[in-house]
């Protein structure tokens, strides 16, 4: 009787989780996406319309500390284009014009693939997390639901509802909201082995605005590299060594 009472009390007691612990869980979740500070990621993006493959695109992404990333577009139709993201500053380099132009945060969302989706590898530097639900099941996986609210200008999404595996903190599913409050995308994360480590190896983005459209992002490789600081200077993008 006493044991049953204790068990019931334990089950009914609201779980109090500190903000520090939630941040640690978010950082742990981020480590499944980017496990070292400075990486080169090769990725393939497939765009589907009504479940039919519409386009395939290739990207090389350099991600470095200080919220710096550089996306090199590698497909035939886009080759030579580069998108530089430094904190909340964005530049686009078009090969025909031979110069980097400053673009607004909204412009990085436009076009076929949001460069914000392919170049943002972590959440904890940009978002403040809080626990929304301690237990919720997504696709048969027991999850914690976190709400991430952007505390920086220029983030692709203003708010994210992120479901993390309760046991491992692996990202499972997310709802991504724009600054207007509109649900922009729903993301499902695919886990797998990469270089002998359990990592996010892909994600599927279901478009909330363009009905019937989805994007499948596959991380082909993630290599730790030392990236020269020059790579993140907009004026450097015109140089041929960056291709």
């Amino acid at each position, binding site marked *: 009787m006493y044991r049953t009472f204790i068990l019931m009390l334990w089950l009914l007691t609201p779980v109090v989780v500190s903000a520090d612990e939630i941040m640690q869980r978010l950082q742990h979740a981020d480590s499944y996406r980017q496990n070292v500070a400075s990486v080169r990621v090769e990725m393939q993006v497939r765009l589907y319309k009504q479940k039919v493959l519409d386009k395939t695109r290739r990207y090389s992404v350099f991600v470095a500390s200080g919220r710096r990333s550089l996306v090199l577009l590698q497909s035939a139709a886009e080759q030579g284009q580069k998108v530089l993201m430094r904190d909340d*500053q964005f530049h686009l380099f078009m090969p025909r014009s*031979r*110069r980097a132009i400053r673009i607004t945060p*909204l412009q990085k969302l436009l076009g076929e693939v949001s460069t914000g989706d392919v170049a943002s590898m972590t959440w904890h530097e940009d978002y403040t997390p809080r626990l929304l639900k301690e237990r919720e099941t997504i696709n048969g996986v027991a999850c914690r639901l976190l709400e991430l609210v952007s505390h920086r200008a220029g983030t692709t999404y203003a708010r994210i509802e992120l479901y993390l595996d309760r046991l491992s903190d692996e990202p499972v599913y997310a709802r991504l909201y*724009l600054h207007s409050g509109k649900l922009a995308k729903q993301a499902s994360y695919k886990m797998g082995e990469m270089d002998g480590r359990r990592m996010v190896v892909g994600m599927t983005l279901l478009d909330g605005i363009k009905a019937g459209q989805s994007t499948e992002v596959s991380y082909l490789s993630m290599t730790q590299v030392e990236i020269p600081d*020059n790579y993140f*200077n907009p*004026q450097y993008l015109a140089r*041929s060594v960056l291709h």
Partner: protein
Amino acid sequence: MTRCRLCLLCLGLLWPLLTHAGVRLEYRADLARQQLDEQSMFVVPEPYRELATDTQQYELLLKYTRDKLRMVIAADARGSDQETTLPVQTRVDEMVLDFAAGGYEWSVGKKIVSWGVGYGFRPLDIIQQESRLQWQALSAEGRPVLSMERFGDDDADSWLWFRDSRVTPLSTQYRNALAYQHYALQNSGDLYVVAMLDEYGSYKLGGGFSQVVNNNIEWHGSLLYLSDYEKFIRTEGAALIASSDPFQNGRYSQGTQLLLGASRHYASGFSVMLEGWYDPAAYSINEWGALLTLSAQQLALLGGATPEAAIYGNLNWNSRAFQATSLMQQNLLLRVSYTGERWEPALFLLHAPEDGGYIANLSMVAEVGDSTRLYLAWQQFGGQAGSVYAQMPMQQMLSLGFSLAGLW
């Protein structure tokens, strides 16, 4: 089907067989039909007419980038649709070696250098200035350059020696020049300072900015002081009917080019841009007035003692004024565009506030597959009676083209 067109089309179809690993090929074909304004003074009758109503243009670009070397070789053929053979011209647009030495980044070779901000006009493009609103423009050709650059965390300095060229309908002139650019990256904007000095003592000094105001609005501007500039203009004092080409490069001292613009972007994919600029290197409204009056006086001589070949020849010389990069000194540009996944329609309206003339351009770029693009553009010239654009020989133009790009 002309031999040349067939040859270039075959090349386009067979190019995968001609390529090597790491080579990118781009092939573009454009056909245009122009409707001439028969009321224009500058549309002279056959056999004196030099303007073609149907034109064709083909361009093949071979691009190769490996390690520190970038190379762009171009071959183009263009002319009127009546021509049975088109001369194929080849050129090296770029061949540049980028390398680091002594703490600086160096470039040597032929290179396209673009420093300007803006869409319709870029005063700060002091190394080379392209015609920004020309629909059928061929790819740009670089300049011989030796540059030394320093890149900091938030700034950069570039020093260049380059060989400048001034291309006029009569000749191409070359001169050595030194140029400098300082770039500073600020929290919400980019700042530029540029300077140039050539071997004859001509210099240019200027600055510009591009600032992101919020999530979807950007504005930009630039100002360039010119110690002197040139215009391809009719010699003062030339006879009413000149017996030899009366046009030459007129030299003017001191001028300032100015650009101010802003753009707003919407989550739906639409963008709106407004720009205004002033370019003293274009004809002033008085210079246009003088040329139009002169052309009317020349035309009035028809039926008199002056041979019509001389009259129409002079009018043909005069009509070259319409080929300038900038036609008017004061310009307002409105551009509305949509960035879709397969379709990119755009409308621009270039208005000349000095005389009420305009160019309206409606274009559509469609992506077919992963490497093919189709282009369609319609351009209309008009405005108030007497305005420069309303008196252009060309009234409207329809252009159709496609491009292929491939990597092997």
